[in-house]
């Protein structure tokens, strides 16, 4: 009973933390983008504009939330919930510090990959159910892009699995005590980050939403908090990918002096900022360039990475 109560408490804490971080990121992203583009950003509501998040929440919650008469009602309502739920579920396997984490799963990595595959349903459903041409195009693009990059994401993690000999994220972190996997698995890291950006369809790979050509892509017809949920899902996704990059390639909670949980949060914040910097820096490629790059460059490179890792492991005995 005590065990059950403890795990429920941890789950509540992790979910609350994830949602709080996602909400805070709305403000962080706007301020950081403003900084890099030499403007101020939101600075009026509360100290440093921190209460902007609250103002936005109240505004978006009280907006008209309509379901179009030409849409497929059930699927239309379901789609935004799926993206939030799948993103939150993946947090179950993240080891935050020794002893802190929702579950110690021996198939942790597979669980993450499964959840990120389910995320495809959200955007494909949203695009199709909206009954709008822009949405349909956005949904199709999102599905094709997420499916393709799913393949490379799975492949890029195999090197880490070979080195650690486990799918369990705790074991993977413990295996990095001497050397972080970002050194032997540098290629894997690069592929994973690129695939992560494409999976969360963040800029520069936000072609499913591409507002200059598709208005808002798959969420053109959404309004109110249903629209907001796609953004909450996106920010949770960014946090998740950053946390995974830290866990898999940058030693997780390992670090000198400071307590483990502080190291984990510090590293994760750094990678979240990197995601925002990517958005501030790069222009958007064309869709055929994106998929071509994936299948013609990322796939051969990640296969080569796998073979080289295998060969090196073999040579070292």
């Amino acid at each position: 009973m005590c065990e059950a109560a403890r795990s429920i408490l941890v789950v509540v804490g992790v979910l609350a933390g994830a949602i709080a971080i996602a909400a805070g990121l709305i403000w962080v992203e706007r301020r950081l983008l403003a900084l890099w583009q030499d403007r101020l950003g939101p600075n009026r509501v509360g100290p440093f504009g921190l209460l902007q998040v609250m103002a936005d929440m109240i505004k978006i919650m009280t907006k008209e939330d309509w379901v179009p008469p030409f849409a497929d009602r059930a699927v239309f309502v379901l789609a935004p919930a799926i993206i939030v739920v799948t993103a939150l579920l993946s947090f179950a396997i993240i080891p935050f510090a020794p002893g802190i984490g929702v579950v110690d799963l021996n198939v942790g990595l597979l669980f993450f990959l499964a959840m990120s595959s389910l995320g495809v349903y959200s955007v494909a459903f949203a695009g199709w159910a909206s009954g709008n041409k822009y949405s349909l195009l956005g949904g199709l693009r999102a599905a094709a892009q997420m499916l393709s990059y799913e393949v490379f994401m799975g492949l890029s993690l195999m090197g880490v699995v070979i080195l650690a000999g486990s799918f369990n994220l705790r074991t993977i972190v413990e295996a990095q005590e001497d050397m972080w996997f970002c050194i032997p698995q540098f290629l894997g890291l690069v592929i994973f980050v690129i695939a992560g950006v494409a999976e969360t369809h963040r800029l520069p790979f936000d072609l499913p939403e591409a507002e200059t050509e598709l208005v808002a892509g798959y969420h053109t017809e959404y309004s109110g908090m249903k629209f907001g949920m796609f953004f909450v899902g996106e920010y949770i996704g960014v946090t998740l990918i950053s946390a995974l990059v830290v866990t898999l390639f940058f030693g997780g909670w390992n670090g000198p002096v400071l307590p483990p949980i502080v190291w984990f949060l510090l590293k994760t914040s750094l990678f979240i900022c990197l995601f925002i910097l990517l958005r501030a820096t790069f222009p958007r490629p064309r869709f055929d360039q994106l998929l071509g790059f994936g299948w013609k460059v990322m796939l051969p490179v990640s296969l080569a990475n796998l073979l080289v890792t295998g060969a090196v492991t073999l040579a070292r005995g």
Partner: protein
Amino acid sequence: MAESYFPIMVILLLSAFIGVAIVALSTLLGRNRPSEVKLMPYECGMDPIGDARRRFSVRFFLTGMLFIIFDIEIIFLYPWAIIYDKLMFFGFVEMLIFVAILAVGLAHVWKKGALEWE
């Protein structure tokens, strides 16, 4: 073993609750004032031409098929990677052959033009 999945069940229920709660709250709190123009599909202010259930490029299907083929092949790599330290030389040679077959498949798809978007 099964009880280690208990937290997964908890997080599944709770996050499903959060998802449903947000959708419900938004529907309850938002006001509802439909008008004829508002009920049309958005098409940059023009009256929409036809509906959205129309033909789209077959390339999207091709990408989906490529995903299925390569993802299933990659599923075979997961168990291999996890026991690689036991298989060693045998595993490495096996994987060389497997990846070679995969590469031939990729080269074929590439040559047939399935990766081109014209």
